[in-house]
């Protein structure tokens, strides 16, 4: 089955442009996704877009979706009862190891895969997680209690200082990295943020993984449009999560 069919069971607005959308399976649900893996959400007569799995239960799929003005505008407005198609899960997610001290950096709608990671980390021995969420202002922060309730140390940054650390999330991360030792830095958010986080990881000698975004259209490795330039790697099958090592290959080409 290419599309597994789901019915929208709820749509909750989290911030001015971010919604939590919950789907319920109407035939066979997709198989279990790991944190960082994604699906293609098909909205009939609208289009298809890649979305990280945020939460998954037997018959349920949860997404956190930001309105970017294209098909995602329609996705944040999905109403209860609407039918959609879902295919996946696709790609490779974040690596989770025992006895590791994780620092997670989520920028805006980059939160869902990292929140899923927090959930998975909960039941892994010896893991501690510090979860940072960054936004322009307090009103754009969301699902902080969710992260706390799953046992993460939660900190936030806002550009305007309306809540938590005033400044960029990568500045907050830099502060934390200078104060304490972390084994791994995982990030998801805008490309600029990811590149800055990668820089931090290198500087502090911390293992890095980041979830990236490219033009995902087929999601199965044939169209080539999601290529991580110069690496020969396709985001849809080899990513969306890449390690520092994989991304440095990107810079050297070939």
């Amino acid at each position, binding site marked *: 089955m290419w599309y597994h069919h789901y019915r929208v069971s709820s749509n909750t607005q989290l911030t001015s442009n971010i919604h939590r959308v919950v789907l319920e399976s*109407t035939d066979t649900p997709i198989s279990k996704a790991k944190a960082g893996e994604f699906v293609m959400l098909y909205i*009939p007569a609208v*289009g298809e877009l890649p979305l990280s799995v945020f939460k998954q239960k037997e018959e349920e799929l949860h997404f956190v979706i930001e309105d970017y003005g294209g098909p995602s505008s329609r996705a944040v407005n999905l109403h209860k009862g609407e039918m959609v198609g879902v295919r996946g899960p696709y790609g490779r997610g974040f690596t989770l190891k025992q006895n590791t001290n994780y620092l997670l950096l989520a920028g805006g709608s980059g939160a869902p895969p990292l929140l899923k990671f927090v959930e998975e980390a909960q039941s892994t021995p010896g893991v501690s997680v510090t979860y940072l969420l960054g936004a322009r202002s307090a009103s754009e922060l969301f699902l902080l209690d969710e992260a706390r309730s799953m046992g993460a140390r939660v900190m936030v940054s806002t550009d305007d200082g309306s809540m938590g650390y005033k400044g960029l999330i990568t500045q907050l991360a830099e502060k934390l990295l200078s104060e304490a030792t972390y084994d791994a830095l995982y990030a998801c958010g805008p490309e600029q943020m990811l590149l800055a986080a990668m820089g931090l990881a290198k500087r502090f000698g911390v293992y890095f993984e980041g979830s990236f975004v490219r033009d995902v*259209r087929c999601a*199965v490795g044939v169209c*080539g*449009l999601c290529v991580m*330039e110069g690496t020969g790697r396709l985001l849809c*099958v080899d990513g969306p999560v890449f390690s520092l090592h994989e991304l440095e290959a990107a810079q050297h080409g070939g």
Partner: protein
Amino acid sequence: MNISCRVGNLILQSPFVLASGIAGNEYSLLLRALRSGASAVVTKTIFKDERNGYLPPIYYESPNYSINAVGLPGKGVYRFLEHIRRAKTLGKPVIVSVGGTSIEEYSSVAAAVAKSGADGVEINLSCPHVEGTGTEFGSDPELVRRVVEEVKSAVGDKPVFAKLTPNTHSIEELGLAAVEAGADGLTAVNTLRGMVFDPVLEEPVLSNVYGGVSGRALHPVAVYCVYALRKALPHTPIFGVGGVYEVSDALDFFLAGADAVQVGTSISQRGYGVFEELKKDLVDYLERKGYASFEEFVRKKRRWF
């Protein structure tokens, strides 16, 4: 076991080549296919200017076929030339697929890529889902002739392959037109026009509504096309394309008269590993059957022509 082969004046280490449009839009992907065992690559079809292609859904897979309407996105030929040069660094042939919405565009793109080192040019006369290119040229023998003539004179001695459509009542007619106009070889075939609905959502899936059918469903049709061309053109180099998953699918093409095959859709299911597996399975097959080389197998097994 020697499984090298010649397709016209291209010498290939094995008869397994990457088909056009399968992650062929970037030098690093072309290099990956070559490092994974493809003996040559055909690039994504390149046009003069940038093209956005279609928005997703652009691809759909069932157990029996795949269907796509990607819409030929690309950065345009001038930004692609650097990719050709870089893809050539492994010394394996890089064939550039050229497109156009006019005969002039086909030939100017071909001239540019030939100058940048393309080892061959494949003319896409057969994309079924974009208006003003592909099948609109490739269904009419007279237009095939004119495009091939112009492209051939634009690229000099670089080999030119005409990639044909199966959406025709006579692929021989199209192949003959191409060869008479100077094509050095043929690629058979591109996808069959097709369409898919989601039965639960009661909607055509592809954003373009219809697209091109590839993979397993295309296979017997593509094998026939190669056979018909081989009957009509005993000596023309021919690439078989369509639904090569297992070595037996490739054997179908070789038995039908193809000199080598291109591999597309199966990569979505089998990954790049498919090239090494095909090579290994071909060697095993030839050994088991007692052939001394791929070339001997091909020479011996063409009884029905």
